[in-house]
């Protein structure tokens, strides 16, 4: 087993552990993410609060675990939406060819040239100012998924175009295979690995974009925690120097994003 394979296994293990911690947040902490201990704001780590408390006296571990749940459940959901859009339109462009191909690729090229963060905050600004935290979470990730498809579409299109020109598809067509059978038995199984790789690559991208949006106050609204709004605490540098454990969400985010990069098999490696 080479070093890359070991790194991949370790990364998958870390990702599984962090995902499980977020999913079972309720069992790992007895506090709610919004519960305030007003008498102990900015408390140091202790037996009661293993990661200390924030400026409002909320348990940092509880907020980190529930924030992990939100970020690690909704980023893959947004990535799934983006991959589905890319898969459907990229597949149509690659398989149909002609004007469909030209129109879809032109739309993808144009979307790739858009300054994503400008478009994201413009879409986010359409929501009313008094939007509820739950709607803010859903809207943030929905916008990310709806706008994050162009680069995946190009990859899906290239894979579908290769399939269109492949001998086995030509043979299937010549043999009188129904379009439905061709789609279900030949096209989708062959596109699946490409789309899975795009789905996997999109997850850390959406985690990072949500973090930036929330740090700017345009993502997930308080009191719901996400990795992004947990990082807002880093803006107060004197507080970070006094309470260095405040960087825990950043460390976790960087580790998870790196693990997503290492966990993806390289070209030629088994998936």
């Amino acid at each position: 087993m080479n070093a890359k394979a070991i790194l991949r296994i370790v990364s998958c293990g870390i990702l599984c552990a962090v995902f499980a911690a977020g999913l079972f947040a309720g069992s790992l902490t007895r506090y709610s993410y919004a519960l305030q201990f007003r008498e102990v704001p900015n408390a140091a780590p202790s037996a009661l609060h293993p990661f200390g408390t924030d400026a409002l006296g909320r348990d940092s571990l509880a907020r980190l675990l529930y924030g992990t749940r939100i970020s690690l459940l909704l980023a893959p959901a947004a990535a799934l939406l983006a991959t589905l859009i890319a898969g459907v339109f990229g597949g149509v462009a690659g398989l149909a060819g002609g004007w469909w191909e030209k129109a879809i690729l032109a739309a993808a090229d144009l979307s790739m040239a858009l300054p994503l963060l400008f478009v994201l905050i413009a879409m986010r600004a359409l929501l009313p100012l008094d939007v509820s935290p739950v709607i803010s979470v859903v809207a943030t990730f929905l916008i990310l998924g709806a706008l994050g498809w162009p680069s995946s579409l190009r990859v899906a299109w290239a894979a579908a175009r290769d399939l269109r020109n492949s001998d086995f598809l030509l043979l299937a067509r010549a043999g009188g295979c129904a379009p439905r059978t061709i789609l279900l038995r030949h096209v989708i199984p062959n596109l699946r690995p490409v789309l899975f790789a795009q789905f996997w690559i999109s997850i850390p991208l959406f985690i990072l974009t949500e973090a930036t949006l929330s740090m700017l106050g345009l993502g997930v609204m308080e009191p719901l925690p996400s990795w992004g709004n947990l990082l807002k605490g880093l803006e107060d540098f004197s507080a970070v120097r006094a309470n260095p454990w405040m960087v825990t969400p950043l460390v976790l985010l960087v580790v998870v994003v790196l693990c997503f990069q290492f966990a993806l098999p390289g070209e030629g490696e088994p998936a």
Partner: protein
Amino acid sequence: MSSWLPRIARRLMLLAVLSLAGGLLGATLVRFAPGYGMDERELDPRLSEASRDAIRNEHRLHSGLLSYYGAWMMRAVHGDLGRSEWLDRPISGLLAERFPLTLRSVLLGVLTAWSAAVLLALASLCARGWMVDLAGTLTSGFLIALPAAVVALAAMYLRAPVFVAIAAVTFPKVFRYLRNLLVHAYEQPYVLAARARGIGQARLLLRHVFRLVGQPVAALFGVSISMAFGAAIPMEALCDSPGIGQLAWLAALNRDLPLIMNLTLVVTLITVAANSVADLLHQEAQ
């Protein structure tokens, strides 16, 4: 030269269509956004009923869809981008005031990022030493795992200029893509054959490798401009730099929809124009 003209005309046509479609889309989003036509001045208890009626009539003037689009088109033809609801100032004036600063930061940032990426990618390929390659891979790997807003905070703490932060966000993506392109080009049989025949490194790069990677590099340059404009939002917002990135952020926070839509449209046109120029230059070089 004659072959240039149709291409430039096509690109200009694309930009014109995009301006019209983007402008209409932005105007539609503003028109149908929740709260359109509401004015907080109507809640001011000091105003008389007549004043409130005047404010309501001001909004009713273009409340019909056709009238709304008609007024928007007339303004757009005269180069009037409308007024910011939050700052109560013409948007074109705000753009003229703040755009040069952002443009300077973005251009310097892109230039710095590309210089670092090209130098490191070439060094790791030409030196063929694992140290340079590892340094580039680790630096880009770490930077790519940081949210842009965290890079902006780091720049703020270190008192680094905004363009350095923009470069730090743009560099890892450019470096990774460029390095993969160069590695792929170096593995081509005719490049291997040229190296085996003892062709010098500079000639190999200029005559064979650069020619092969020209088109994707031109496309990457266009995309990097778009990335840098996007990165300008968190950088200017958190480093308190008064450019259009900060303006867009404040417009979104204050829900100034005409301002944010117009800023997005202007930046989109600039990035699409940059992509077109990169594409045209590459076609001419070929």
